[in-house]
């Protein structure tokens, strides 16, 4: 499928989703901006607790108590989803925007057959009767590569393997040919050989339907092999965003650099892996200044003192490559040491 001009399908601006717990306010997502162009796959990458899943749930407004979206705009085709009424938003879910999850088996309701669960999507959004919906469900099961679809439609989630269950979830999510699919770690719970099958399936169906995808994962390899653009998250913020080549060949943020260097790569034996010291800061008590500063080796190298005081912005650097780092930005009394701006 082709897009003559790149169109923005989804734009998230300054999204903040906080969790109001007994231990304090957890700022799981704290000022996230990114865009998804129609027809592209955006990889959202980061370590556990960085807020990538919360970001995706925020788009569909599936945040449970005690979480709340406190600020921001989410434009989907020029309509702010956060300003929609509840029935309007419900009409979007599963229809124009749908989602698949990390644990396929627990994401299916154990007391209904998988066929009924897929058919339900049609019953909700399309005015068709039960029989037709069921037939559609069986067709979809065939489409996602489930052999013996008529019989399998009558089985229950516990009778399926993880890979099959994820196929069912994909069938359900793509039933109405949505414009945006959010895939939240869709293969993390699966074995590698099954992961390859599922990825193959998602990519194949996407090519057929032209759906845009947000692929959320912690696996850099997965991103490299599937995504068109990447957004890297750290401690509730996007710290770097660019097209796929640029980020792997020329990572700019010290965190991205460290992340790429710390992964063992098949066929590339290194004596010692590079290490990012320390661990992710507490989301209740964020350090002032740059959130990565306490672990940042570049900050030490260039003896940047501004990092501990002021938070850098997510600035456009080269073409569409944006990065949130003082190494490349001038601030009050701070001159970027790498002179990277020219």
């Amino acid at each position: 499928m082709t897009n003559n001009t790149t169109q923005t399908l989804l734009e998230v601006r300054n999204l903040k989703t906080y969790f109001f717990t007994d231990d304090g306010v957890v700022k799981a997502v704290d000022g996230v901006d990114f865009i998804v162009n129609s027809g592209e796959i955006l990889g959202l990458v980061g370590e556990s607790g960085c807020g990538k899943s919360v970001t995706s749930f925020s788009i569909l407004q599936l945040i449970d108590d005690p979480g709340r979206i406190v600020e921001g705009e989410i434009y989907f085709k020029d309509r702010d989803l956060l300003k929609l009424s509840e029935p309007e938003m419900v009409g979007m879910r599963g229809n124009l925007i749908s989602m698949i999850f990390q644990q396929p088996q627990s994401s299916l309701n154990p007391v209904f057959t998988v066929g009924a669960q897929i058919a339900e999507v049609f019953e909700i959004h399309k005015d068709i009767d039960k029989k037709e919906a069921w037939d559609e469900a069986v067709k979809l099961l065939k489409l996602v590569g489930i052999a013996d679809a008529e019989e399998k439609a009558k089985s229950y989630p516990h009778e399926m393997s993880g890979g099959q269950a994820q196929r069912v979830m994909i069938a359900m999510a793509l039933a109405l040919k949505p414009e945006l699919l959010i895939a939240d770690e869709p293969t993390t719970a699966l074995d590698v050989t099954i992961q390859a099958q599922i990825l193959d399936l998602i990519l194949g169906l996407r090519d057929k339907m032209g759906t845009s995808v947000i692929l959320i994962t912690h696996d850099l390899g997965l991103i490299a092999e599937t995504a068109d653009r990447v957004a890297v998250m750290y401690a509730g913020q996007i710290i770097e965003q660019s097209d796929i080549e640029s980020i792997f060949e020329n990572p700019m943020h010290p965190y991205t650099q460290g992340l790429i260097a710390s992964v063992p790569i098949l066929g590339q034996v290194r004596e010692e892996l590079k290490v990012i010291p320390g661990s992710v800061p507490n989301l209740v008590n964020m350090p002032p200044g740059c959130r990565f500063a306490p672990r940042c080796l570049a900050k030490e190298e260039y003896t940047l003192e501004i990092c501990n005081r002021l938070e850098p912005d997510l600035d456009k650097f080269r073409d569409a490559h944006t990065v949130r780092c003082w190494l490349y930005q001038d601030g009050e009394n701070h001159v970027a040491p790498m002179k990277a701006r020219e």
Partner: protein
Amino acid sequence: MSETSIDNKTEELIRVQNLVKYYPVTGGVFRREIAQVKAVDDVSFSIAKGETLGLVGESGCGKTTVGHTILQLLPATSGSVTFEGTDVLSLKGAELKEMRRKMQIVFQDPYASLDPRLPIGESIAEGIKIHKMGNADERVDRVIENMRRVGLENYHANRYPHEFSGGQRQRIGIARALTLQPKFIVLDEPVSALDVSIQAQVLNILRNLQKELELTYLFVAHNLAVVEHISDRVAVMYLGKIAEMAPRDELFSNPQHPYTQALMSAIPIPKPNRKRERVILSGDVPSPLNPPNGCRFHPRCPIAKDICSHEEPEIKSLVSEPKHKVACHFTEAATQ
């Protein structure tokens, strides 16, 4: 089985021969045993002193069971484990307790592997207390020494597991295994529950400790890249059996078993625009309850022929590289 000789130059520390572990499956009205899960089915290998053997495979292939059975955390169904000439599986009581000083284990789940009620210093000291080693002062010294080895500070000893991050907890687990000064450690998926940047910390620690303390590892994992990084030799398991085993560089440059090949091609590599020829296996991993006849891999194998469905391939050395062993009808070994 043919797995007996390893590198002559190095000294063999542990040998596992024909290890079998079946779990009973009960069912029917009276919950009688109606079948067996063949979790580990005739597995043999040996590990030399100071070596790391990587044991890799998908979930349910029996790799964790191998590790636990070697340490007698699970009773073996049959087979033998010889450690420095002693048959480990027949040990009981005081002898077993003594053997436990030499063989240790680090677990997968850093959250579950520490007693939540104990300050971590106590957890690390548990082994030396059980074995009544040294007096109180010496114990404290030993605990602190091992905490430092894994990058923890003195004052951490009085803290509780919930006050640490996942990576730190895994390091505590390593320190606990080290206090008894073992020669051999089973590392049961030690980094699979950790974030990538933390994985590297733990992997580096494990490597450095091995050099410093001349440890021997059995490294169990499902991540091929991690196994490649840390192992000297690698064994690939599929449904309770070893499919292929070879020195690391040999295995990764010249994989023979179609399963190994598929596994390697399925792993995404963080380098964009590198279009690879992918082998995508069809179907799910069969249940070890009813493993397929013949070669266990044949229903998913892209090159399977008739023979594969009724004749089980033996694990044999390659003609060109005797240290490289494969259990497949269609490798050069078959024509040997």
